[in-house]
């Protein structure tokens, strides 16, 4: 266990169970010595650290241009905070990144390859937690999480994920009895129940109490320490260390651009 993670995680919410991947030494190096990152990216094979990047992305919803010429890069271990007023396209961008919406123009690439070339691989490496909780009222909490983990072919960490988000007590309760915060926690437990490199979170803290919010922040920090990437849309101030911020109003189409 590295010193950084010991400093970041309180002992009682430790992730050090057998199921959670330990941060690799390689990634710790890349975090502390940025130049090595560039060298690694230049190496043709093996591409262990592919860059997730969007170039000149344009998103059109209905008749409305939501954002234009949006660029971002997201490396292993990085977090990207999406900020902007309502309707500025935070959720749309997350859906574009997930592959739910095709961008009107621009390129979305993972390690240089367009994600549309291998959509199955892209879906396998991402988790998307949107505004809706994707819970079935008649199913039990553990059953529900087991289903989502099973759809990704791995149910080994369901109990651990429930425990982490303090849902073990409710494991056999049907989802319809959950409160809004509990529903959100169960939706977020999907992140830990089956591993995926890229987390796309749309207002993940809405409805969460302070303790659950802290849990989520620790989960995000731990995920990043293990080389995971996070894109998170939020309004509130979130204690996420050295996260890049993408202000979506910068990419709002100006009236002139529409007229032209």
């Amino acid at each position, binding site marked *: 266990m590295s010193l950084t993670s010991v400093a970041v995680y309180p002992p009682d919410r430790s992730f050090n169970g057998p199921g959670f991947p330990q941060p690799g030494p390689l990634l710790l190096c890349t975090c502390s010595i940025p130049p090595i990152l560039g060298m690694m990216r230049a190496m043709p094979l093996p591409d262990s650290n592919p860059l997730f990047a969007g170039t000149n992305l344009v998103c059109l919803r209905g008749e409305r241009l939501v954002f234009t010429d949006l660029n971002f890069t997201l490396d292993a271990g990085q977090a990207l905070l999406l900020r902007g007023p309502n309707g500025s396209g935070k959720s749309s961008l997350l859906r574009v990144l997930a592959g739910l919406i095709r961008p009107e123009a621009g390129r979305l690439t993972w390690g240089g390859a367009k994600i549309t070339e291998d959509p199955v691989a892209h879906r*396998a490496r991402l988790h998307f937690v949107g505004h809706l909780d994707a819970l079935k009222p008649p*199913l039990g909490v553990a059953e529900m999480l087991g289903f989502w983990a099973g759809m990704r072919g791995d149910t080994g960490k369901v109990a651990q994920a429930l425990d982490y988000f303090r849902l073990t007590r409710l494991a056999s309760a049907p989802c319809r009895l959950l409160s809004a915060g509990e529903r959100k926690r169960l939706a977020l437990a999907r992140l830990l129940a089956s591993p995926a490199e890229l987390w796309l979170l749309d207002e993940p803290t809405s409805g969460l109490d302070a303790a659950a919010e802290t849990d989520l922040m620790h989960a995000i920090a731990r995920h990043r320490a293990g080389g995971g990437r996070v894109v998170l849309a939020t309004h509130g101030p979130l204690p996420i260390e050295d996260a890049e911020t993408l202000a979506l109003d910068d990419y709002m189409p100006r009236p002139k651009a529409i007229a032209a």
Partner: protein
Amino acid sequence: MSAWLTLVRRDLRLALRQGGDAAMVIAFFFLAVTLFPLGVGPAPETLSRIAAGIVWVTALLAALLSLERLFLADYEDGSLEVLALMPLPLEFQVLAKALAHWLTTGLPLTLVAPLLALLLHLDRAGFGMLVAGMALGTPTLSLVGAVGAALTLGARRGGVLLSLLVLPLYIPVLIFGVGATEAAITGLAVRPHLLLLTALLLAAIPLAPVAAAAALRQAVE
């Protein structure tokens, strides 16, 4: 494959827990069929002549009844967008959901059909072919219905639109399904009808999931 079975199992479990759906389809089937003797009169010769048609048409409508919910619940609670982001391609997921739909509607309809045929004085020679035809035809109804259910997601009055879209597509299944039973009763060759029903099913298995998945992708955009 395990993810595929996980989805089938979930849909079956949901259908059983919510209970209502399958039971309601069967109840509708019973009630609608019993309306015919009241409407056309209880004369055995009249009923026996139209029995196969009544059972088939009513089964068609009963299957249609539960179609609207096929993707709607998943669409409304956000499950559909998470499902669309699973590694298992949506086409296979549609196939899994259509199978679960058939197991909870088409199969029970097929099993109770002989009972209703008995009430309608269907000629004894037609019973076997009624069940065989429905066993071959109802999976096609679920598959074709899945396309309609996916297309009408998010539409206002999706249920009515769904019927308008899907019922015309059910006509071939109805014609050959009833044809098989009639042929068995009149002593004509049954084979062509069954082969055509099989052909419809074999065409629907690969085509319907592709069409439905495309419609679902539009819906979650």
